[in-house]
């Protein structure tokens, strides 16, 4: 018995074996790896402003991110996904970069809301970073001010699609260049 998995991106994956025989799940290694990856996206709690409230709501019982295997972590070292939810100031920018650098590969970033995507309504502000993609690579932009929990939920599913569609080694081989010299204020300095 061979069942094609019901997804357009999956070429070869299936389940063999009947009742009482045990079962074999077969497929491409990248597919199986990505499958487990996309269902265990642990996200870094990164709520810096009003978007954070929507993010908390998305983790709550109504939209319930837990059903995707997503649980929030308070430490970047345990996270796979950085969900930048809110306004990032220049003072915070160095910290964002530092947290991103601490995450283990493969790692993904979602810029949630207008502020994280491009500076949003603080476009002309003196203290706000004009988009988090200026400091870390962003995989997915989520527009809205703030995006509703449904929108974030949708973004998470799109994120899962992205993970499933890429080569399992891509994120590991990709080099992220550390930015030089982080400045004063107790921030780590790199050579």
């Amino acid at each position, binding site marked *: 018995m061979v069942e094609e998995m019901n997804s357009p991106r999956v070429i070869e994956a299936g389940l063999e074996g009947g009742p009482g025989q045990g079962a074999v799940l077969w497929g491409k290694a990248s597919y199986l790896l990505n499958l487990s990856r996309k269902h265990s996206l642990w996200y870094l709690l990164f709520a810096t402003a009003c978007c954070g409230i929507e993010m908390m709501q998305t983790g709550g019982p109504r939209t319930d991110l837990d059903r995707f295997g997503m649980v929030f972590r308070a430490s970047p070292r345990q996270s796979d996904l950085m969900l930048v939810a809110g306004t990032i*100031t*220049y*003072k915070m*920018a*160095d910290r964002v970069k530092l947290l991103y650098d601490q995450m283990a590969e493969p790692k993904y970033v979602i810029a949630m809301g207008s502020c994280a995507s*491009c*500076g949003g309504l603080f*476009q002309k502000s*003196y*203290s706000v*970073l*004009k*988009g988090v993609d*200026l*400091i870390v690579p962003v995989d997915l932009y989520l527009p809205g001010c703030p995006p509703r929990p449904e929108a974030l939920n949708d973004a998470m599913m799109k994120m899962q699609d992205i993970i499933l569609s890429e080569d399992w080694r891509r994120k590991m081989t990709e080099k992220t260049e550390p*930015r*030089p*010299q*982080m*400045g*004063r*204020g107790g921030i780590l300095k790199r050579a």
Partner: protein
Amino acid sequence: MHFDEIVARLRERFGDLVGEADEPDPARPSLLPGVFVRADSVTDVCRFLHDEPAMAFEHLSCITGTDFKDSIHLAYVMTSYVHRQVIALKVKLDRDDPSIRTVEEIWATANWNEREIYDLLGVYFEGHSDLRRLLMPDDWVGHPLRKDYQEQPDYHEIPTTRENPLGKY
């Protein structure tokens, strides 16, 4: 105690150090009622307003600063919960070298207020226990709320502007 009475008490106590008063004016609702004092007397006047039982301004609501191009104005907005009264002390500072004594010993909350003003307007507060920038990073160049502020093109190699995607239309 009314605004006029407070101003009268201040004039009686401090004489020339107290300048003109911005009376509460229904026609100008945006004007903050307050009284100008000389910059070097601000701690004495604040101490008086704080300690005197008839005034008892025990709470400093905020300190605001404004760049008027020829001078920098600070306004110390204080509240008396006992007498249900709000008043602002206003100070004019030299724009090129703005410096004033801290009121941190009177209201501890002034610590952050003064740091903010130092950060955004470049006013130096003598005797402040921890005068660092508050909103901007420590190594930021310039004071953003000054009228002649020029933003640097980048900060730590991060550009400070972003191209408007609609600009080309």
